[in-house]
C-alpha cells in the first residue's frame, strides 16, 4: 500500500513530479457569468440554516419526549443525521466562507458544525486548504478518506466515525498541551497553533462536561444529544462523502479525473448543501453552494457526464475499492470532453 502520510516519502515524489500547488485544469467560462455565480448573499444560507436548526431542535425535543419508547429510535435517527451528517456540509460551506455573505455568520456556523463533526476547527481549516491545493495528491492531501488498498472494514468503521474520532481525539489531546501531531505541522503554520490549543482545551472541557453530566444523572441521555450523534448520525455523511473522490485517479492535476459530480434529489441536496456538485466546487471554490447547479449547467460541456444517482456512483465505487485491495493500480478512468 502507498504511504499516504502527509509530508512522508510520497510528498517528495509529488514535488519532483511538479504536483505540488500545480496548475489545475480550468474550464472556460465567461467572466461576467462567473462573477454572477460567485455573488454572495445572506438570505439563502439564513433560510437553509434556520430550517436545519429548526429540524435539529424539533427532532431533539421529540427524541427527548420519546426517550424510553421505541419512538426514540426514529427521532434520534433524524436528530443524528442533522447533527452528525448535515453538519458536515455546513462546516464545509461556512469553512470556505461562501455560504453567507457575512463573515461572522459563516464563522459562527463553522464553529458550531465543527463541534458537531468533532473537528478541531483551526487545524481543519488549514487541512482543507491543502486539500484544495493538492487534491488527492498522495503525501500532500491530508483529506484522502478512501485510500487504495485499505481494508474495507475501514470504510465500514467510518460510517460510525470510529477511526476519525480516534485520530481526532489523539490530535486534540496533543494540541491541548501545545504539541501538534506530525502531519499537522506540514500544513498548519506554527503561528496558527495557538487557536488549535485553545479549541482543543475547549473540546476536552465540553466533552468531559457531558460525560460528567451523564454520570451525575445516571443516564446516557445528555450524550445522546451532544457527542454521540457524531457516531450514530455520521453514516449519511459517509454515503455522500464516498462519492467525492473514492476510486478515482491519484496524482493528477485535473479535477475531472479525481472528483465526481453526482445528481441527487432535493432532500439529499438540502442535507448535503449541493456538494454533490463536487467537481464544480473543486474547480471554482468561490462559487457558493446555492449557485452550483447553475455553474454545473454553465460548464457541463467541458466536464465528464455526472452520475445519475448515488446508487449509480456506488455501483462503480465499491467494486473498485474491493479490487484495489489486491491491485492498487486499479483506477476509475474518465472520458473528458
Amino acid at each position, binding site marked *: 500500500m502507498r504511504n499516504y502520510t502527509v509530508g512522508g516519502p510520497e510528498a517528495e515524489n509529488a514535488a519532483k513530479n511538479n504536483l505540488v*500547488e500545480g*496548475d489545475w485544469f480550468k474550464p472556460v467560462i465567461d*467572466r*461576467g457569468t462567473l*462573477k454572477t455565480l*460567485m455573488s*454572495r448573499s445572506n438570505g439563502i444560507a439564513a433560510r437553509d440554516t434556520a430550517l436545519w436548526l429548526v429540524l435539529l431542535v424539533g427532532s431533539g425535543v421529540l427524541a427527548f419526549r420519546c426517550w424510553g419508547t421505541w419512538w426514540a429510535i426514529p427521532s434520534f435517527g433524524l436528530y443524528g443525521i442533522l447533527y452528525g451528517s448535515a453538519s458536515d456540509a455546513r462546516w464545509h460551506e461556512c469553512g*470556505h*466562507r*461562501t455560504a453567507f*455573505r457575512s*463573515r461572522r455568520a459563516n464563522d459562527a456556523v463553522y464553529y458550531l458544525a465543527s463541534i458537531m463533526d468533532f473537528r478541531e476547527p483551526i487545524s481543519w*481549516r*488549514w487541512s482543507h*486548504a491543502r486539500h*484544495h*491545493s493538492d487534491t488527492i495528491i498522495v503525501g500532500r492531501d491530508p483529506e484522502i478518506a478512501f485510500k487504495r488498498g485499505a481494508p474495507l472494514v475501514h470504510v465500514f468503521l467510518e460510517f460510525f466515525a470510529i477511526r476519525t474520532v480516534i485520530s481526532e481525539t489523539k490530535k486534540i489531546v496533543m494540541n491541548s498541551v501545545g504539541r501538534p501531531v506530525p502531519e499537522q505541522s506540514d500544513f498548519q*503554520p506554527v*503561528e*496558527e497553533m495557538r487557536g488549535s490549543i485553545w479549541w482543543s482545551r475547549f473540546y476536552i472541557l465540553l466533552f468531559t462536561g457531558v460525560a460528567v453530566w451523564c454520570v451525575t444523572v445516571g443516564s446516557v441521555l445528555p450524550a445522546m444529544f451532544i457527542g454521540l450523534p457524531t457516531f450514530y448520525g455520521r453514516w449519511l455523511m459517509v454515503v455522500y462523502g464516498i462519492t467525492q473522490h473514492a476510486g478515482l485517479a491519484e496524482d493528477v492535476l485535473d479535477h475531472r479525473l479525481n472528483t465526481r459530480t453526482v445528481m441527487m434529489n432535493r432532500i439529499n441536496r438540502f442535507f448535503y448543501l449541493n456538494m454533490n456538485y463536487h467537481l464544480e466546487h473543486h474547480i*471554482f*471554490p*468561490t462559487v457558493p453552494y446555492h449557485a452550483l447547479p447553475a455553474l454545473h449547467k454553465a460548464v457541463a460541456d467541458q466536464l465528464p457526464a455526472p452520475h445519475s444517482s448515488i446508487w449509480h456512483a456506488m455501483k462503480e465505487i465499491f467494486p473498485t475499492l474491493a479490487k484495489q485491495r489486491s491491485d492498487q493500480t486499479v483506477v476509475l478512468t474518465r472520458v473528458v470532453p
Partner: protein
Amino acid sequence: MSEPTWKIVSKIGEIASDDVACVEIDGVKIAVVRTTDNQVFAIDSQCSHGRASLTDGYVDGLEIECPKHNGRFNVVTGEAVASPARMPLQTYPCRITGECVEIYY
C-alpha cells in the same frame, strides 16, 4: 529601479464595475479593482498564501477573495483579512484620469 511615476495601465471601460482586471507593469502583475462607486485600487495580483492570481477572484466591496482557498485581502490597505491568507499584499496608489486608469509605480 526608476523613480515611481503615474503610469497609464488601462482604460476604465475595460474594467467592469465591482470587478477586477489584471494589468502588468515591468513584469509585475497587478490586480486593479473597480468598486461600484467607481473608485479604483491596485494590489499585487499574486496571492500571498499560495499559487493563485487574485484577478480570477471575487470582489466584495473593498475586499478581494482569492479564487483558490477563499483567503481575503483589503484592497485599500493590502491587509489579509480572512484566512488562510495571513501575509499582507503590496498596494499601489491608483486613480482614474479621464478615461484612463493610472497606477503610481
